[in-house]
């Protein structure tokens, strides 16, 4: 396939932003009918080159051509007319619109008497069926669809005019459960049969090796490797190119001494999303919760933290029966949560770093009820230094920090509170590898100080790398509770995606 002439060619692309050389002579070539993976750490230049293709940024140097036609200046309209389509990570759909209305949004078919609703419905259904290999009624409301189906509707909207030649997918599977991914892959194969070139940007290397024909790896603004043959075993070499070092160093050495139980949960359920969960976390123990999105993992940790109320079961904290009416209650009793969506739930984005760090321990930096600003700044500075938050300025606004540093701010908030149990929900999502390692080291420190830690994650490798014990959830129930070293990547993945749930639920 690599013998085909490339339909999209970017060569020697450079782009600088104030203080950052985002791209430096990068090359990316994509052939018709191929799925071309684009991988790299955060900051490697993937999104910059995508935005150059889209005409959002002007390049400083280099050439770009589509279908043999050179583009000196790229405008969003120009690339659209040239047949390039972008499938953004966000779905951008209206929940109360029908599938047909959504597919034709902005390009409605009209006749003499207004909208031709039937035509639009039939064409939308036909496109979804014939091209994307899925059957959805055109009258279904978006809010009644699963996420994978919504993704397909989004794809159909971008391609319904039948003029697409190149499609750029930005993390198309990020919100999907792995059972749903295949549905999107089928659609991609459908497009491939039609000779459409695709760029597939993703962090999930397993998917890259599954679906892609070729892979370009970016590091530090350059293309460091192009893999022409992609097999299941390509992951290791991709990671080596991405990171420029070996992966074993990613995870710290585990040598935990597990003490008395901090938290014991028995038969906990909320009647909807998880049922009869038993879970024990000891002092200095790191327990992982594995499971797909939708497995009840998120709801379980939210409920332990008091964000929701359970309908069944008991919780015991330090041997005393307890149930947390609210997060405030949980924090008061020594449980803290680092939420999965840090921008929405973790940080007050318009607060300074110092205010965010001190938010949960304002009494410590107050004289009676008045805030002691210098004490607050000092405390924040000390914590920021401890875990290397950059920039080191306590007055920086949290919104403008990178993902990894934002996560560290949320962690810093809880560090000096003397919490006995830390719940970390997806602590490293959207964090680059350097910050990942630092976060793992930080978690290590917490356990070394005798705190219990729960890490809930959709990344099995991460859990295997750092946990003492892993609890696996599937469809709201615990299906395994094993020492981490008795599990392998294969066995853990198999447990989270058990092919015969009836057997488990029976």
């Amino acid at each position, binding site marked *: 396939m690599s013998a085909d002439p490339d339909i999209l060619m970017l060569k020697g692309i450079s782009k600088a932003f104030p203080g950052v050389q985002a791209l430096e002579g990068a090359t990316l070539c994509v052939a018709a009918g191929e799925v071309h993976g684009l991988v790299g750490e955060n900051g490697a230049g993937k999104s910059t080159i995508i935005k150059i293709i889209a005409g959002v940024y002007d390049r400083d140097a280099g050439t770009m051509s589509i279908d043999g036609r050179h583009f000196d200046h790229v405008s969003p309209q120009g690339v659209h007319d040239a047949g390039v389509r972008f499938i953004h990570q966000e779905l951008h759909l209206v929940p109360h619109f029908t599938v047909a209305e959504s597919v034709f949004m902005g390009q409605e078919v009209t006749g003499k008497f207004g909208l031709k609703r039937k035509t639009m419905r039939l064409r939308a259904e036909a496109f979804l069926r014939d091209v994307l290999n899925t059957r959805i009624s055109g009258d279904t409301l978006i809010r009644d669809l699963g996420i994978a189906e919504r993704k397909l509707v989004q794809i159909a909207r971008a391609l319904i005019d039948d003029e697409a030649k190149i499609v750029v997918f930005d993390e198309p599977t990020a919100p999907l459960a792995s059972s749903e991914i295949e549905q999107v892959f089928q659609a991609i194969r459908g497009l491939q049969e039609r000779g459409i070139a695709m760029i597939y940007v993703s962090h999930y290397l397993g998917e890259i090796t599954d679906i892609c024909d070729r892979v370009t790896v970016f590091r530090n603004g350059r293309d460091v490797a192009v893999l022409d043959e992609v097999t299941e075993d390509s992951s290791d070499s991709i990671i080596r190119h991405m990171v420029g070092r070996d992966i074993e160093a990613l995870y710290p050495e585990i040598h935990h001494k597990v003490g008395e139980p901090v938290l014991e949960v028995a038969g906990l359920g909320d009647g909807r999303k998880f049922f009869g969960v038993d879970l024990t976390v000891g002092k200095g123990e790191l327990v992982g919760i594995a499971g797909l999105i939708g497995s009840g993992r998120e709801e379980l940790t939210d409920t332990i*933290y008091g*964000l929701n109320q359970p309908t069944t079961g008991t919780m015991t904290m330090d041997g005393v029966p307890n149930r947390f009416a*609210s*997060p*405030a209650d*949980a*924090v*008061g009793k020594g449980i*803290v*949560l680092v*939420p999965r969506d840090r921008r*929405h*739930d*973790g*940080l*007050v*984005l*318009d*607060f300074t770093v110092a*205010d965010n760090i001190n*938010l*949960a321990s*304002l*009494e410590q930096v*107050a004289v009676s*009820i*008045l*805030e002691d600003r210098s004490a607050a700044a000092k405390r924040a500075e000390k914590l920021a230094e401890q875990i290397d938050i950059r920039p080191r300025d306590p007055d920086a606004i949290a919104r403008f920090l990178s993902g990894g540093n934002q996560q560290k701010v949320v962690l810093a*908030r809880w560090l000096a509170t003397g919490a006995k149990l830390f719940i970390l929900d997806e602590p490293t999502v959207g964090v680059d590898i350097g910050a990942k390692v630092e976060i793992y080291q930080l978690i290590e420190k917490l356990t070394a100080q005798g705190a219990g830690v729960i890490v809930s994650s959709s990344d099995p490798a991460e859990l295997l790398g750092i946990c003492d014990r892993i609890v696996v959830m599937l469809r709201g129930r615990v299906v395994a509770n094993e020492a981490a070293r008795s599990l392998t990547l294969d066995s853990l993945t198999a447990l989270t995606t058990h092919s015969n749930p009836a057997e488990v639920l029976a």
Partner: protein
Amino acid sequence: MSDRAEHKDRGIRNVFVHYGFLIIIASFFAFFAFYTGSFLNASNLLNIVEGSSILLILALGMTLVVALGGIDLSVGIAFDMGAAFAIVALKEYDAAWYVAVLIGIGGGALVGLLNAFLIVRLSVSPFLATLGTFFIGSSIQRIFTNGGGPISYRRAPQEYRNLATGDLFGVPMEIVIAAVILIAYFIFLERSIFGKRIHAIGLQKTAARVAGIPVQRYVAIGFIIAAATCAIGGIIGSANLRMFTPLAGFSYLLDAIAAVFIGASMHPRGRPNVLGTLVGVLFLGMVANGLNLMGLDFNTKDALSGLILVAALAISVAQKRLR
């Protein structure tokens, strides 16, 4: 556009972004001083401050609610209830003046309690909840007064009347009370740890909740404190006229909202804040006073102040957005 012109353009923009509203206040001030002889008299300036006292009290309550991320359309009802409860306590139950004040504050707090119940327990958005409270409260006043006739009590005790007409070391009592509330609000909202939590809730409710702040309790108490504050305004109003005038509080609603938003536009990050609200209130007081001195008739004055209000809000929002 040449580089220099562009630079100059940005310069003008910068001036507007940082001092836009202050310039407008200054030009109104100069205009009134120029066109009306008596505007700059010390006694008139004192009039402006005194005349703004009640609005300031209501606007402070509004500042608290807006800082919590809500809005309170029922501040007028709390104002009315404060007046009604206090006057009725004095007239019908011969209550001592301080008891009447406490009962008035309690009456206002009831309005806040209803809002808090609707917002926290029933998850109604603050706008609709307080709009409903506004309609119900207005209707109750009409029922109670048989269509809106005032309840007057000419023989109100002197101590009660002093709340509006007395003075402390020569400073009118209204100003003293408003200043005390202003200082209390400043400490509470801008300098205390409660204020920090309130601003966190107003910016990002879920993040505040995850950080262990009891959000619902803060919201509920915030609405109750705001309503109680507004009731103090109503008590002063009723002490001044020695009567309860139904639905009198409504006229303060938009001015209070405007003062808060004008104040927010002066904050570096666009947050509602106590000192900004003070500036907003004084601006509105100045405009009302100046239009009065210009001798316009009642209807024209109403229309003009409405238009100035729209323009002032537009400029303050534009200023905040350009920052």
